């Protein structure tokens, strides 16, 4: 019997077309966001072209800008992954900053207590304890979710508040740095610091996160766990009927998210600050969520989107210096990109329906 076989995948040409089609909303969203922000900048009495040039070129003008951008890229990528991985299973981890803070706590605890140990022993311990602390912190929310069906959005958000108090207590009571002005801990031992490369120095955490991103993207696409994660996110009931332990997948996804949040905290301590201080979490949680959503949960897209956001974040300061536009304008820009992206989804869906209708009418005529 001869059978006409269908294609396993669309042709290369079709895939390029699909990709271009998918890119249109992004392009429109970015353009739209920049236009609105231009109006705001004008209204504030500054020159938008000057402001945008400062924002967009700062990272690429010299090596300092690029190193700054990559340092920013590290926590942004990790927190975006910490949000996107549970999102794959339909769970919302809004606890990235709590997990980052606990990661930092784990790292400084080891980094201060065993400050005399040599780097080859201490540095791995610092990173691992940071990751484990993040795991424990997210694990609490995951356990409450699995055992008592407590909504993970609530528990992760509330655990963030708890983490602020933990940080405050450690930095002002347990290991306070008497010489510092605010809530700052003592520095970690020299052996706990991440080595640097290049000039200006860039900590090797950047390379570590690059590796983590690649592994995460490959596992999401190829591994059994990645497939089960996707299956649970697509249809939890069908996944369960076909032998996927959906509750366990959800818990593991939260815990992996916590591990990545913890790693972010550990790298901030070991690579950037060499101590823990109030505000170490910056606004990475919010930006991580924005990145995860702009990437539409794709772990492959997350590092690229995170890089774009890092460019904007690093450029913000330069923009304020050059054109006087306040740094917060960049956050408006980032929020608007996401907003316009969501809106353009709706618009493209409408356009598609209209196109189908027109072609049906044309067929009638």
């Amino acid at each position, binding site marked *: 019997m001869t*059978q*006409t*076989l*269908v*294609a*396993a*995948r*669309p042709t290369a040409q079709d895939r390029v077309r699909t990709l271009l089609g998918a890119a249109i909303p992004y392009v429109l969203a970015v353009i739209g966001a920049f236009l609105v922000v231009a109006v705001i900048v004008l209204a504030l009495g500054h020159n938008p072209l000057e402001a945008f040039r400062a924002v967009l070129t700062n990272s690429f003008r010299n090596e300092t800008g690029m190193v700054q951008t990559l340092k920013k890229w590290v926590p942004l990528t990790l927190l975006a992954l910490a949000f996107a991985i549970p999102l794959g299973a339909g769970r919302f981890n809004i606890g990235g900053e709590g997990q980052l803070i606990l990661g930092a706590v784990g790292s400084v605890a080891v980094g201060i207590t065993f400050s005399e140990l040599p780097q080859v022993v201490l540095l791995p311990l610092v990173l691992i304890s940071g990751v484990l602390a993040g795991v424990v912190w997210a694990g609490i929310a995951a356990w409450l979710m699995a055992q008592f069906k407590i909504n993970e959005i609530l528990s992760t958000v509330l655990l963030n508040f708890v983490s602020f108090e933990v940080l405050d207590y450690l930095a002002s009571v347990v290991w306070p740095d008497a010489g510092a002005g605010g809530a700052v801990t003592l520095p970690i031992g020299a052996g706990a610091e991440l080595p640097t490369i290049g000039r200006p120095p860039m900590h090797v955490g950047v390379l570590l996160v690059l590796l983590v991103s690649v592994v995460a993207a490959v596992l999401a*696409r*190829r*591994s*059994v*766990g990645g*497939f*089960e994660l*996707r*299956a649970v996110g*697509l*249809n939890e*009931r*069908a*996944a*369960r*009927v*076909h*032998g*996927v*332990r959906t509750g366990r997948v959800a818990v593991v996804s939260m815990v992996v998210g916590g591990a990545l949040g913890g790693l972010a905290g550990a790298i901030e301590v070991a690579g950037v600050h060499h101590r823990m201080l109030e505000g170490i979490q910056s606004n990475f949680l919010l930006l991580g969520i924005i990145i995860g959503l702009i990437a539409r949960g794709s772990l492959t897209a997350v590092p690229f989107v995170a890089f774009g956001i890092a460019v904007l974040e690093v450029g913000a300061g330069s923009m304020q210096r050059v054109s006087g536009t306040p740094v917060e304008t960049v956050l408006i820009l980032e929020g608007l990109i996401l907003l316009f992206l969501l809106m353009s989804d709706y618009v493209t869906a409408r356009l598609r*329906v209209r196109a*189908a*209708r027109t*072609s*049906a009418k044309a*067929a*009638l005529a």
Partner: protein
Amino acid sequence: MNPSQAQPGTWADGSTSAPLLAMHGIRKTFGPVVALDGVDFTVAPRQVHGLLGGNGAGKTTLMNVLYGLYEPDAGRIEIDGRTVSVSSPRDAIAAGVGMVHQTFLQVDPFTVAENVVLGTDTRGTRPKDRIAELSERFGLAVDPGARVETLPVGVRQRVEILKALYRGAKLLVLDEPTTNLTPQEVDDLFTSMRAIVDEGMSVVLITHKIRETMAVCDAMTVMRDGRWVTTVDKADTSADELAATMVGDAARSGDAVVRVALGEEAAGEASLEIPQPGRGVRVRVSGLTVPAPSGPPLVDGVELELRQGEILAVAGVAGNGQVELAEALTGARPAKGSLTLDGAELVGRRTAAWLDAGVVYVPEDRQRDGILPGGDITENLVLGSHRSRARLGLIDWRQAREQAVRAIGEYNVKTPSAATACGQLSGGNIQRVILARAFAHDPKLLLLHNPTRGLDIASTTFVYDRIRAAAARGCVVIVVSEDLDEVIALGDRVKVVYSGRLIGDFERGYTDPYELGRLMTGVAA
């Protein structure tokens, strides 16, 4: 009497009857899909008119246009010779059209009477008397004071019919009304339909079962692929001819089992030559129970012994624990008791272990339980075997895609590519993907729940052929179905599920539909 002709005295000219309903050139498209392509449909007064066709033929769409639920792209509707414009069900009711859908729109905590009068003006009327009178006249036995949530499906359907009659319908449209009715209830319904026609109204019976139209209709119109095919008087046609018209050029299975299952003929007329199942018992179920959070168990002490190659068909009215039974028998839901397959105990083990042992479940709700709608066909075919096919925790997607392409060919899935999202396929093609996945597991115990619901004739026949091929290879098959024709045709043994218990036991050839009907409603339990 030729029923398509007018009754003497009803019409002025007497010889050529003006039709009660005439639909001309109705066209309806949904995006690029042409659902109705210039359909003409005429119903004479005092006629039960069968609207016959497979799933997807456009029967319900046509009647939804008549009832004002869809606005046609083109075409004209005449009632009693006058062109009417119907843009909402309200217009349709005013024009004398009543329609009973497959899913009832009823307010559960309200009484029968309240549901019937809901939305009408009751001032100066005595609704209860009127309802009692209608129910008496048409043999639609209901208690006007009963709350509808307490009533079985058959009675709730009568409430829907009463609603239409109460609003003065002279043309009553019933959409697949026999689904979920016992044979006794079907008989009662057909009697009421005849009574309605005797009072001067007309009834349109939407169905895919030829046997039903031959039993109750005066004339029938066959539709196929959104087109009108033919309109014939019952006296001038036969079941065979209708079947050929309905299927069209598509290859017809000459097989008696398939004809019975499709409702083309009754089991008594067909001679079913079936290979006997083997002797060895493969599946033993004892005391299988699914406790409910409160109240009686959802599945209650099921006992079964199934031999190699045996097909067990389980009949029942929906909502008697079918889903729970199916899930408990396939390990998709925790249960107590025992189920052994080839001697190995499976109860208490994880769902994945059941799958590995060769227990495969084809769920009733394909979209909800069967597929990952956003996943492509390849991913859907991998689901369930993703662990056993992985090496070092990684899935070989290239190999999976190649297998998907072969399965698509073998199972005739109509799709542009293996990378198409499963949720974009039609119901029949989704079921083909699910079956392709099920048989790729090389099942030893295969359970299918309502496997042909909503499928067109070609897909339905395909499913029956696959089921019987699996049994011929020695697989134990359990078919849980609300379609009695299907149950009787496929089952080597037939049992009934009622309130979570399995009752009755009929060998092939000794199945009496009425006896099944009594068990299904708990009368003989």
